[in-house]
């Protein structure tokens, strides 16, 4: 039934419209309470549902936060254990190195000190003999024997001069020997000084390491206790590690792309340039596989060297097998790097061949002239082909950091998302309640006339009731009086 039909039940459409409007308003007015209840119930149901959903999301967020905290603390604990373990290993190395050399050092020091003592004893200055002739000379000189004493004195003088000369010679010789002994002490002093300096350095290193261990142990204890500060530090560290490792991985990806470019073209000579697997050339896939194998070997090498700990199985291998694995993976890497260098050389040869052919096809004879300095690019390509596989080995370190920090970062992102979702659901719940009220008001809007009449009637009834009560009160007061 169209609008036009509806407006034709009286000859005047305006009148029909007015009647219809009045009927509609009357119907709406009669259904007002029910409609309000329905709107209220619907809005309340939606609001309640959203609030429940918000609470559920909040609960999930708390659960995720607790889980993330556990993961973070576990990761932090493991990292600290590794650091402390490494520090202890370093201290152990230092102590072992110094203690292993200690008997030898002690012996050398003892020998040096003993030698110094001996030299020192030998170098003691012998006091010059007291001249014994002086009193005898005086006695002889006092004798009055007519020049008989002069001869004796002359002889004594001669003997004294001779004895003095001999004594001076002996004295000089003894002094020289003493000086030589003192000079000989110098290397021993130096040896002692150097040995003690070495000992001092080792002791300082051990003290430094022990301080670092103390610091790490304090942090470790804070992590074990699950302190909020420790969690906060670990979270921020994880985010920093995540971005740094992502950056390094991006650089490694660029390196991989360069590596791929170096070997993709010559790979076509090996596996053919026209075979496809799906939508990709087999040669490209082969080049990519070679690079992936290199990266895998790099990962295994790093694992075997215990630099990274991505595969617990490799870490748990016995020392002998681990060393064998290190050697094997390194040899495979060396082989791959050599192959890549060869392929890089082949690439240059192919490129030259293609350039020459294209020049011939273009009829350009000058383009085929080979530059004398072309060996530089060839050597550079070969060098890159050889070095890049080894450079990609180190991808394992940022990869490990990335994998570990990714868990935390994903957890933190999830927490933030759930928090936002809970807030949004809560807001929507509130909005739904307010929308219900708004819908009730909007429902009342076309009913303003009957509502106004109702309000007036209520006011009049209220006034009448008030007047009636006042009249009764007055009559009661009068009756009491």
């Amino acid at each position, binding site marked *: 039934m169209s609008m036009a039909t509806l407006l034709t039940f009286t000859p005047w459409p305006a009148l029909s419209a007015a009647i219809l409007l009045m009927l509609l308003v009357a119907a709406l007015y009669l259904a007002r309470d029910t409609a309000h209840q329905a709107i209220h119930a619907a809005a309340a149901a939606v609001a309640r549902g959203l609030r429940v959903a918000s609470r559920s999301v909040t609960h999930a967020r708390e659960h995720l936060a607790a889980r993330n905290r556990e993961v973070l603390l576990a990761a932090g604990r493991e990292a600290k254990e590794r650091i402390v373990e490494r520090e202890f290993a370093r201290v152990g190395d230092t102590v072992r190195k110094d203690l292993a050399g200690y008997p030898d050092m002690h012996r050398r020091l003892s020998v040096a000190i003993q030698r110094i003592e001996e030299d020192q004893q030998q170098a003691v200055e012998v006091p010059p003999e007291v001249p014994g002739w002086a009193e005898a000379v005086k006695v002889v000189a006092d004798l009055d024997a007519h020049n008989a004493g002069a001869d004796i004195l002359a002889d004594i003088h001669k003997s004294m001069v001779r004895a003095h000369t001999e004594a001076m010679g002996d004295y000089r010789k003894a002094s020289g020997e003493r000086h030589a002994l003192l000079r000989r002490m110098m290397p021993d002093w130096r040896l002692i000084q150097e040995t003690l300096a070495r000992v001092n350095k080792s002791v300082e290193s051990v003290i430094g390491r022990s301080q670092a261990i103390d610091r790490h142990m304090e942090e470790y204890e804070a992590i074990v206790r699950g302190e909020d500060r420790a969690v906060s530090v670990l979270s921020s560290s994880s985010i920093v590690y995540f971005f740094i490792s992502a950056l390094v991985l991006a650089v490694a990806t660029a390196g991989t792309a360069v590596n791929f470019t170096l070997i993709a073209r010559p790979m076509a000579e090996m596996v053919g340039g*026209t075979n*496809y697997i799906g939508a990709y050339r087999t040669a490209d896939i082969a080049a990519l596989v070679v690079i992936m194998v290199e990266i895998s070997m790099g990962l295994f090498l790093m694992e075997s060297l215990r630099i990274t700990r991505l595969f617990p199985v490799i870490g748990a291998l016995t020392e002998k097998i681990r060393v064998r694995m290190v050697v094997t993976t390194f040899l495979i890497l060396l082989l791959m790097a050599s192959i890549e260098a060869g392929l890089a050389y082949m690439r240059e040869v*192919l490129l030259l061949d293609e350039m020459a052919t294209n020049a011939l096809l273009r009829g350009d004879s000058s383009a085929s002239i080979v530059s004398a300095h072309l060996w530089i690019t060839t050597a550079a390509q070969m060098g890159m082909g050889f070095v890049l596989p080894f450079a990609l080995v180190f991808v394992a370190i940022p990869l490990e950091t990335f994998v570990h920090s990714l868990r935390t970062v994903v957890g933190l992102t999830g927490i933030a998302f759930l928090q936002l979702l809970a807030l949004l659901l809560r807001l929507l719940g509130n909005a739904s309640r307010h929308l219900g009220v708004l819908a009730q008001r909007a429902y009342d809007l076309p009913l303003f006339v009957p509502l106004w009449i109702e309000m007036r009637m209520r006011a009049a009834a209220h006034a009448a009731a008030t007047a009636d009560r006042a009249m009764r009160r007055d009559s009661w007061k009068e009756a009491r009086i």
Partner: protein
Amino acid sequence: MKCRLLLLSLAVALGGCAPSAPHNTGVYLLVDTSGSYNRQVKKAEQITLYALSRLQSADSIAVARIDTGSFTEKDIIAKATLDDRPSTANQQKRAFASRVEQFIDQSAPAPYTDITGGLLQAIEFLNEKHTARKEILILSDMKEELAKGYVRDIPLDFKGFDVVALNVTKLRADNFDPRQYLGRLDEWRARVEKGGGHWRVINDLDRLDGLL
């Protein structure tokens, strides 16, 4: 559930390993050696060299002449399918270019022009090669003159073929009445398109960029 997953993995693996659709190109160059066009034959070298420079490993190329009866392998001057290995493909290209150069130096004019026969031979050759893309290049004035006894009023199947008429020169009669030239081209266009092919004309050989 596990069985389904296994089957799905198997299907994906088989899909990945299945032989993929060919990506190669086949080019067949028909060179008109009739009396009215023989002077233009030298341009065949330019087109051949251009085509060779565009072709990759596993692509096929053939150069054939259009003479009195062109529906024969004897008219194929040189043909090659480029090797998988790029270095060998380059050697093949150089050898091919050399053979075409020899032909151009020794080319003799033919009394008649059997374009349809050449096209039939080209279709046969390219269909045998199973190339993904098939290009027939015709270096001719497109004026067909058949010797007595040659029946060429047969439908041609150009499905999947690009037919490119190159350097379609105007004949003396065309200058008097250009409708002959335009009519000739329209006639060939209709014939190719009726056979399910795609028709193009490139008269400026310095602008072959769109070709191949």
